[in-house]
């Protein structure tokens, strides 16, 4: 599967952020959403570009660390599912995905998606 990712990049809490577009290829349906971001980061590092910061830890939906707003929905489109439990089979091949941090005054952005 192929996707176009529009990811919120913001260097520091003070700086202003923007969406940056990243095409990504050879994604399989049984990859989790965060594994897709891992793959993007490995590619970015290889190209010498800064990796995308995102919060995660347990990857089984219990620690409450992961925090992405995907296409406008916190934790993405599925009900009762944290971002780390979301799998790519849920999306259509070729789709554009908007990925943002939580937006709330009480949760200031530290960097990128954190």
């Amino acid at each position, binding site marked *: 599967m192929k996707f176009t990712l529009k990811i919120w990049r913001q260097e520091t809490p003070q700086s202003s952020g923007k969406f940056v577009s990243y095409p990504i290829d050879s994604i399989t349906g049984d990859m989790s959403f965060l*594994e897709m971001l891992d793959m993007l980061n490995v590619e970015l*590092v290889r190209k010498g570009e800064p990796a995308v910061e995102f919060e995660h830890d347990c*990857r089984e939906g*219990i*620690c409450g660390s992961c925090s992405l707003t995907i296409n406008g929905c916190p934790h993405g489109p599925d009900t009762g599912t944290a971002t780390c439990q979301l799998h790519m089979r849920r999306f259509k091949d070729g789709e554009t995905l908007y990925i943002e941090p939580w937006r709330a005054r009480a949760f200031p952005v530290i960097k990128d998606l954190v």
Partner: protein
Amino acid sequence: MDSRIPAGDLQGKWTRCKFENKLVAPANRKKFTVIVVGSGLAGASAAATLAEQGYKVKVFTYHDSPRRAHSIAAQGGINAAKNYQNDGDSVYRLFYDTIKGGDFRAREANVYRLAEVSASIIDQCVAQGVPFAREYGGTLTNRSFGGAQVSRTFYARGQTGQQLLLGAYSALMRQYGLKHLELHAREEMLDLVVVDGKARGIVTRNLKTGALQTHTADAVVLATGGYGNIFYLSTNAKKSNATAAWRAYKRGALMANPCFTQIHPTCIPVTGDHQSKLTLMSESLRNDGRVWVPKAKGDKRPPSQIPVDERDYYLERMYPSFGNLAPRDIASRAAKRVCDEGRGVGSSGLAVYLDFADAIRVQGKETIETKYGNLFAMYEKITDENPYEVPMRIYPAVHYVMGGLWVDYHLMSNLPGLFVLGEANFSDHGANRLGASALMQGLADGYFVAPYTIGNYLGGTKLAPAPLSHEAFAGTLGDVKARIALLSKNKSGTSALEFHRNLGKILWEHCGMARNDAGLKKAIGEIKTLREAFWEDVFIPGSETNMNSELELAGRVADFMELAELMCVDALERKESCGGHLREESQTPEGEAQRDDSKYCYVAAWQYQGEGQPAKMHKENLVFENVKLAERNYK
């Protein structure tokens, strides 16, 4: 190396130890500062209790909140010798089961104390409001876990770790609100400061700003969890790491039995190279799920079309008295054996069925849903298969490490003032941990053991002032800076993640479920080569003075690279099999672990000897005065 086990009969040791402990008067406690690194069950419970007692406590976690610690992911339950089910449980039985479950490679005195305080843990957690499962009459209910023939496991659905951690976290936050403790979130310990041979502080990095800081204290508690993540694929959280423990090792603390790894039998199988972690399906599922594979090799029919008489319920066949609740090491090995025979299922052939059809038929779908609903939902999200209709596919995966920093009966390392709690120490589980005993140990250490023994240390030790201006702090800070500079030197290259993945493959192949002389030697060579490649090629984009998870990961992987070698050296040296450590050269005719008590009835505690030097092994002989060393039999 003095294990400081109190003299006298087993039952009286802990009482005697508490009585003989030096005390610090309530008014004097505020003069002492204790640093607690890690905020999981062991760290949070110790920090809260020490603060309640009146000590000045500083808690450090690399998470944004103490509640994220990986204890939260524990599913099945917590053991305690309450005998609420009136089925013959007792402190002595829990002690015996734990010693036997650990294949006679743990200290009797420590394990007995663990069993002794287990009942108080449940009381404490109930008082905090932990919503344990209840009977209709309002009393606490239990379920069974592997390696036991009584029901002594307390649980809160499949989220017991979460509820216990939230209990400990609430106790911690209460002390924080009362201004009895300082909380340092998003601050990672990168080194231990040793002054005059005693642990007196730490160096941390603020993960938001990159700032390096030094902190001084009278005692340092490491409750930093286990290093199972060294295998890259494990059930551990992605950030779990060995850095705090490894830094302490390199400052002189002994590392004990590093090769003792627990491979959990029921995890969701690997689907491909992209995979970043493995998800556990709680052992509690084996209360009702039946494990089987086809009798015939290469039988690729869907499970529903394989008639019952062509199925091999191999755990029930091989271990009739414990059946599907055989201990973890034994169940894992059995799964590996049937898959090696070519009878594994699924596309990779590296899986066995865990089937609930019979349980659903007898108990009804609703009952099964109440017991395991969240686990079934989790399974379906990951695999896209409905376990109410088709059997789960499971395979063993790295879950826990019994090895860890060496501690004495007081949970103090050989470095005075350094206390190590929970999974980070080696003390209670021997060569294999029984299910639902990790939560018990974390909370026992934190609530009921360390607060007494740390008081004894502070009350009975002459501590000279160790101000931050002491040269040891500047020296250690300099070492940390140099290390970060070394990690950041490459201007292009590869992400630490790829090195981590490759390290995991080497360890899983040669130091995983089965180990042998040639494989371990090969692994040591491969790890050295990989470590060289890592330092030459690891690339960290971004800045050191900002949030940078690539830098965090690279530091952790660098430590894993060194620890991996020590694990293999330890595994190579221990030529017997015991618990989760199976040396292929030492098996019974049925393929079970064959211990050699005449040669290996000891704890191997390794001491760092300097860069590039082989570590030196010290032996702590294990003395069994109460239980008879016997072959572990679950048939």
